């Protein structure tokens, strides 16, 4: 009989698995000096989060985050290199020193702040309930309606709505899908009744689906989104903070926001020189 596994193969696999955590060695963060001397700032942007990151008609990465990164590079007098990142790999990209900064709706949380360093907030997010105007199996008119065993929710994996549901609508049935288009499709097809997510992530891409959407008025929570840098890269972070302050003061952030959303931020960023 042929072996399904022989011992050597098995040992090799086990050794490979054991070595896995050792693979990314101490890839030291590129401090400010390295960015300046190479004259290149590498920004990780997720193009699957329109309008924060998107592919434009020339198939280049564009969007709010790209505009912000370009302005940061301009003010630092270095060239910008946009690196495409996805949701699960953006932090490894940062930690293995393939990018200097990471954007893409990275909501500030304590758990994440243990792993990366954040700049001061770039923008805010407001968590809302999305449902259909045409009505659902269970009527959803207030966020409290979600806490019902008959309510089916659909969420993108790892988004901030998931812990909110666990705390506030624990009775609802939740299906976690991979991305926003899949969630909108599930809602459109009647697989789910509602979704809890930040308005900034849904208002633009939901237009691709021919559905009369309804967003409940209540804002369930506000979140703060900064730019991520590798843990301990304070020389770069400190400069970014000053640049962000100036970009808020000059109105660049708000103008760019309006360009992509057509409306101001739901939760404005207070003007604060102390950071």
């Amino acid at each position, binding site marked *: *009989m*042929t*072996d*399904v*596994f*022989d*011992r050597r193969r*098995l040992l090799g*696999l*086990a050794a490979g*698995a054991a070595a*896995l*955590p050792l*693979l*990314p060695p*101490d*890839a030291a963060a590129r401090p400010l000096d390295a960015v300046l001397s190479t004259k290149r700032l590498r920004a990780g942007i997720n193009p699957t989060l329109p309008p924060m990151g998107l592919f434009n008609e020339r198939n280049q990465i564009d969007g709010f985050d790209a505009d912000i990164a370009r302005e940061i590079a301009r003010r630092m007098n270095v060239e910008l290199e946009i690196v495409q990142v996805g*949701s*699960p*790999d953006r*932090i*490894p990209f940062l*930690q*293995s020193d393939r990018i200097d900064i990471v954007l893409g709706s990275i909501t500030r*949380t304590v*758990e*994440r702040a*243990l*792993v*990366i360093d954040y700049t001061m907030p770039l923008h805010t997010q407001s968590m809302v309930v999305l449902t259909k105007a045409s009505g659902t199996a269970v009527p959803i008119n207030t966020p409290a309606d979600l806490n019902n065993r008959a309510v089916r929710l*659909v969420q993108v*994996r*790892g*988004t901030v709505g*998931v*812990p909110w549901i666990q705390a506030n609508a624990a009775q609802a049935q939740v*299906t*976690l*899908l*991979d991305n926003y288009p*899949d969630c909108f*499709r*599930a809602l459109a*097809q*009647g*697989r789910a009744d509602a979704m809890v997510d930040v308005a900034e992530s849904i208002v633009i891409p939901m237009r691709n689906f021919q559905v009369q959407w309804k967003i409940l008025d209540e804002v369930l929570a506000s979140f703060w989104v900064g730019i991520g840098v*590798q*843990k301990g890269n304070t020389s770069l972070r400190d400069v970014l903070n000053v640049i962000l302050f100036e970009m808020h003061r000059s109105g660049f952030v708000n103008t760019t926001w309006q360009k992509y959303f057509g409306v101001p931020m739901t939760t404005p960023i207070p003007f604060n020189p102390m950071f």
Partner: protein
Amino acid sequence: MILQYGQVWQYLPDFLLGALTALWIAGVAFAGGLAIGLAGASALSFGPWALRALVTAYVRFFTYTPQLVQIFFLFFALPEAGIILSPVTAVLIGMTLNAGAYLTEIQRAGFASVPPAELDAAETLGFSRAQTVWYVIAPHVVRALYPALSNHYIIMTLGTSMAAIFGVEELTGRALNANAISFRSVEIFSIVAVIYIALTIIASALLWLVGRWLFRVKAKVF
């Protein structure tokens, strides 16, 4: 970068539940696929022309298109026709039909590998068709195909990771959830890799037990 495994051990029980889900989904789909494959291989070997054409079309369709696309169709296209399958149902049906196609091919090859002399001998001894299949072909098929079948089972066990896309909370899905919360990607995915290796070993061992007890195949697993 210093790895902090202490921050992620809290997810381990959750990951192990996900591993269990992966194991049973693969097990059920493989068992279903084996049954479909046995029927398909019998049809291809002994069936009339029309049935052979039908089975061939099924095998071609499911082996020439990716499993992911097949399940995507079940999960996102069928609702347009008013049929809404739950995540687990869609994944189970998709994986079973896909496995059935591959296992038809594998088992047909096993049927073909029976030496004609043995079939002649069976005929000489006056065996019926059913007796020939059971006493001559089946033992031969099981012995000859054991490695191919167990390989396919392991591939299916690892392949359950795509179920995360369709909302099944198996190992990969749970890893992605934990990763989004903690951002400790290297720690999480290295733990998950080790669990997948353990799953592969468990899957091989399960098949070894089945082969040993049901078919008396003495396969060397490790």
